[in-house]
């Protein structure tokens, strides 16, 4: 009965109700987007870091992995120290650099990862095989397209370019053995990977026995935090970071987006709330006579309050449901904008849909709908019956 009455009131002014639902839908879409933004990038980054099971990373002192051009010296000693730790499982040193590949008359420059192919955590082979020999190389799809090379081809590559002498520290003929999907690379980035020792030798003296990063997987059952503390104690000249530490750093750097999400989410909620409050208040003002007649014939105040609150909730829920679909579409569009950040890994997303985000948005809007009905329902329920009846009759 209450629902029918609320529906009758709302359908009396269809245009107005439809517009209110549309307004709430846009607010709900924005709210969902902002809830997704505030949690999505964190979840996406964590998933990206955990994808190959490496829980710890070692970077040059005072830096984050691949944040600068700095490298870790004496990597062999560092690896030896790490191997002596019983809880350390897999160790994968990684060196970053550039290879210049001669293709016909032109040279193609590609970002290069030097890593031990058997334990690396940077790429997955899509076609072909892992590098087995020192001169084997795997490349991204974009690199193969840009150079026209295929698996089995050989290529002439150089590294360690000295801009002042216009010379390279090392040249080699490499064999393309596989096509790989690189996990941490930006979309469209030209990238190849060779064994660590190959890149160290090609880059010359500045890279000998050096690495940009060392990735570590703890043994099954070992405490990652305990391993982290052991590394910090044994290797004071490097920075060891766990996934949680890296997340904290990312949280700091991307705090702008989280705060923006919070502010815009709050504004969306406030706009939806104001819209519904205005609409329900005007609706109550228009039918003061009707409300006091109901009270005069014995309808309880609680039922009147409930009916008016139901009107607000109905608009909010209808708007929220249509807004959720709209929110998913706009989130996709906004994500495509933010994903074009230079150097951002292609697998990283800012807007990630999780069911709890939708429930949170719906819950917040429902609460806002209930609150939106509080003032008009209080006004409707507290009207003096006789005075209002007389005023309405005169009007």
């Amino acid at each position, binding site marked *: 009965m209450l629902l029918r009455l609320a529906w009758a009131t709302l359908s009396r002014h269809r*245009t107005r109700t439809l*517009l209110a639902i549309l*307004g709430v839908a846009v607010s709900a879409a924005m709210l969902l987007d902002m809830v997704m933004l505030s949690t999505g990038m964190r979840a996406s980054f964590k998933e990206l870091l955990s994808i190959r099971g490496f829980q710890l990373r070692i970077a040059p002192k005072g830096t984050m992995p691949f944040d*600068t051009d700095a490298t870790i010296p004496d990597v062999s000693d560092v690896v030896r120290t790490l191997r002596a730790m019983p809880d350390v499982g897999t160790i994968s040193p990684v060196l970053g650099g550039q290879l210049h590949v001669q293709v016909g008359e032109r040279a193609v420059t590609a970002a290069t990862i030097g890593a031990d192919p058997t334990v690396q955590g940077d790429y997955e082979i899509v076609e072909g095989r892992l590098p087995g020999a020192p001169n084997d190389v795997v490349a991204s799809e974009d690199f193969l397209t840009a150079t026209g090379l295929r698996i089995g081809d050989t290529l002439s590559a150089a590294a360690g370019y000295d801009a002042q002498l216009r010379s390279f520290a090392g040249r080699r003929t490499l064999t393309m053995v596989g096509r790989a999907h690189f996990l941490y690379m930006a979309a469209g980035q030209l990238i190849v990977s060779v064994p660590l020792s190959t890149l160290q030798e090609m880059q010359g003296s500045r890279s000998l026995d050096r690495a940009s990063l060392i990735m570590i997987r703890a043994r099954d059952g070992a405490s990652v935090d305990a391993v982290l503390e052991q590394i910090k104690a044994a290797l*004071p000249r490097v920075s060891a970071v766990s996934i949680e530490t890296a997340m904290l750093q990312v949280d700091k750097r991307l705090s702008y987006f989280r705060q923006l999400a919070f502010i815009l989410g709050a504004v969306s909620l406030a706009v939806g709330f*104001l819209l519904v409050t205005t*609409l329900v208040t005007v609706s109550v003002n*228009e039918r003061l006579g009707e409300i006091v007649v109901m009270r005069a014939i014995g309808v309880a105040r609680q039922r009147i309050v409930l009916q008016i609150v139901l009107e607000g909730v109905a608009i909010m829920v209808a708007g929220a449901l249509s807004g959720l679909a709209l929110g998913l579409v706009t989130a996709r569009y*906004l994500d495509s904008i933010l994903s074009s950040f230079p150097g951002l890994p292609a697998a990283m997303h800012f807007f990630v849909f999780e069911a709890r985000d939708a429930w949170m948005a719906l819950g917040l809007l429902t609460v806002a709908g209930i609150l939106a009905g509080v003032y008009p329902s209080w006004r409707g329920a507290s009207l003096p019956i006789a005075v209002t009846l007389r005023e309405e009759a005169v009007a």
Partner: protein
Amino acid sequence: MIIALLVAALIPTISQTIDSTPPRRSPRTLAIDERLAADAKILIGDRLVLSSTPGGVGDTVFVSAFVRRRADPSEVARAEYRVRMHLDQLQTLIGYGDRVDRFAVGTPTPGAADSAIRLINAAAFGFQGFRSRDIAVQTSRTFAVVTRFHRAIGVITIVASAIFLLCIMLLKVDERRRDVAALRLLGISSRSIVRGVMVEAALMASIGSGAGVVLGWVAAQIINWHYRGVYRTPLAFALVTPGIVALAVSLSLVLGLIAGFLAAQRLVRTPPLELLTGRREPRVPFEPAPTA
């Protein structure tokens, strides 16, 4: 390379010790980031030991100045510390030899930059000249993405505002349907009523946008205060410029007028009696009176 420089040991001392060895070259000075000074509690005149590797052999320097960061957007999210050293001092410290990463070259007039670049590139061996503006475009690609994101959010906000405004105008007009019905029964033309509603809408939009400008300005001050504190930078994060005010006010006026026009059209198309009673009157087809 400069970024990779590690400030390995920062050792503030109260006084210098007396040394019996023959006098050596007095320690050099350096300027440090005021954020580093605040975090490490370093004062002017403090002695520091700098080294290029953690725990490596260091060079003793005295802090002679604090440097405030420039408003550079490309550095805003990076919580790095910076130190400013003499060129030869840094080259020696990091074993860089007689090399630099880049030169900044000034030209007498902005127009001379192109010819200077041509001359440099023609004579250069191992380096290349770029216009500062081109480098700025490259380094600000991140902010181009953020700007596109803000624009997209702006469009969504405008859509929501338009719907909100239309809704409010409909409500305002609906509230006055009896007055309008009376006016129409008195013979006031529909055009005058539409005009009146639109003037009212324009007034509402003007007052609303005026309040919005004030609110926006206050919000911008709060945002700048907050983010300048968070990122410790003099950068302005939100700016209320005359152009932005003009765009916001004109947009809200246009939206208000459109909303007022649509609401007024709805009002004048409804028969006055329906407006008065609030009930839809049955449409009886006109039948001519029977002739005798």
